[in-house]
């Protein structure tokens, strides 16, 4: 059975080798802060760039990244029209803290929660923070693992490259 499965995968791998390198968002449901659900492919920014940033309330560098960008977010939006979507990977231990933390921090981001790591796995993330940049077709064109001070400058440069 395992051999059969392996053969199938190998076949799929080879049969798709010639496909272009575009990368779209996986079709995965995430939770909204008001208890609902949304498929991540439904996020929209009218053809303007979208940044997706994975974070958690217990992750120091994640909060540093999002707090730093929050200070300049209005300028970024004026300049490039970018929208930031922050996806928390807090599980049921800490997901209740996401909304009060986000509100108290004055963030203007769109925030969703991925409590059992479904989207995290589908997007190949092993550690947070992990940031993706999406172009007008919502294709992932750039990504970055981790955050150290100053990384937001590189992100802005990448956004500017695709902003019209």
């Amino acid at each position, binding site marked *: 059975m395992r051999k059969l499965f392996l053969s199938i995968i190998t076949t799929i791998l080879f049969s798709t080798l010639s496909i272009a390198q575009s990368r779209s968002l996986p079709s995965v449901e995430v939770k909204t802060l008001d208890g609902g659900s949304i498929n991540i492919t439904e996020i929209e920014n009218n053809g303007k760039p979208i940044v997706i940033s994975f974070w958690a309330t217990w992750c120091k560098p994640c909060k540093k990244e999002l707090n730093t960008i929050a200070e300049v977010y209005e300028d970024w939006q004026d300049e490039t029209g970018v929208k930031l979507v922050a996806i928390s990977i807090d599980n049921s231990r800490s997901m209740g*803290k996401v909304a*009060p933390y986000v509100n108290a921090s004055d963030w203007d981001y769109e925030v969703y929660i991925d409590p059992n790591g479904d989207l995290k796995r589908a997007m*190949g993330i092993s550690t947070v923070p992990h940031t993706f940049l999406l172009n007008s077709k919502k294709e992932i064109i750039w990504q970055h*693992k981790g955050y150290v001070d100053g990384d937001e400058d590189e992100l802005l440069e990448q956004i500017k490259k695709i902003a019209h």
Partner: protein
Amino acid sequence: MLKKITYTLILSLLTLNSFSQNNSSEIHGNFDLNMQSYQEDELIGAEAADEIILNNAYLNINYTKGDFVAGLRYESYLNALLDFDDNYKGNGIPFRYASYTIDGLEVTAGNYYEQIGGGLIFRSYENKGLGIDNAMDGIRLKYSPLKGVYLKTFIGKSRTYFTYADGIIRGADAEVNINEALNFESKTRIIIGQGFISRYQSDINPKFKLPQNVAAYSSRLNIINGGWNYSGEYAIKLNDPVGSLTAEGNNYANGNALMSSLTYSKRGFGIIAEMHRVDHMEFRSERAQEKQYIINYIPTLTKQHTYTLLALYPSATQSEGEFGTQIDVFYKIKKGGLLGGKYGTKIIFNFSRINALNGGGSYLNDNEEHNPMFFSVKGEELYYRDINLEVYKKINKRVKVTGILAKQSYNKDVLEGKTPGTYGIVESTIAIADISYKIKKGHTIRIELQELLADGGEGSWSMGLAEYTISPHWFFAVQDMYNWGNDKVSKQLHYVNVNCGFLKGANRIAIGYGKKRAGIFCVGGVCKEVPSSNGFSLTISSSF
């Protein structure tokens, strides 16, 4: 022969490219490698590994074509890192699945992860850092017949290491977003959910008639109005005796758990008050098995700390019985004024207290019966208490400061499963300063100073860390933990670690050298004990 036919069939299907139309296919995934060398160090009690180098690695591959997804994970433990259970051995593909969605119905065959509500009765998940992976293998269906109604049902076996447990797990869950389902606009939104889980395991016990089917169910409610949010879940697990050959060893009592939280938040302010009560609620995929077989998740009701000394004595849920309360306050002082300064100031306060249920969890067998009080708040044995205050302030364009003060009480006997009365409660006071200074564009130096003053346990600790980062590619860090307050002079040791790393786009490579102390390592609310170690480490993480 049959295999060949199937294979040919699938091959031709693929060649015909007929999974779905007008969708190009994509392949993505990620790779992680953790390698560690182990040298002996008698002082810290670190053991050398016979293999010198141990290595864990994972490769995930996901293939997508329209509404069809398939994937696998290759896992390699040659041999597993010392802090992993040595039942993780060798190479294999323990995770593979295929799934498609059509007209609101999602069908998955193979491996999957699933959770019912907050996880009180069932959670299948993975946490590589803690060596946890109880993925399911079987069939799962998810269906949304109309907007706001979400149904799911699944059947399968739960993974333990490279095999599957004996029990067959069946589950179902329904969630209804009342406002969306009935299509009415209201300031108040209500979501209700009902979950059910059942484990079948045959009874081969010669002496006792054990329940072959063990059920657990949970109901949940979420009410949201403006800045207010109430969330609650109540779960019951029916009797699940372990099947010991003595009547005393079997506990026929039912288990139950309650989680409840109330949140209020507005711009610049947020508060959340939570409580939970857990009574005989551990649920495993096989009777009488170890912790690796647990298939439910009872969230720990304390703050998950990230600074090393704050997390030195971490809490862990006692699923046989505990009562806990927690309050978090988030506040941002506006710009201007003495406290707000030029950029505003953030304050986070957290309090949590966990104690025993009156006399322990529910117990019922031929010789003994015990039903704990519901509100076991006062006078019961303390398991854990934590009061902490964090202040974050950006001083100017170059300097950012975080300061934390905390007071923790840690019941070492209970939380580490030692004989009662051996260590008692470790009381500690912790202070932390984290200062980062931007030298020039892209170059930042960050200093962490941590101090833990403790009675009991290993005594007092100091820690210092200096980190130099060059955005976006490099980081260098050196840290020292010093157990200067240990009662035994021979144990007053330094644990020095040096790390550096290189990041570029989707790849991250880090190397480290140093000594790690033995202790409890917790991620995502679950803890494991790790041995002390001494040596080199290499970590590679890559996505494609």
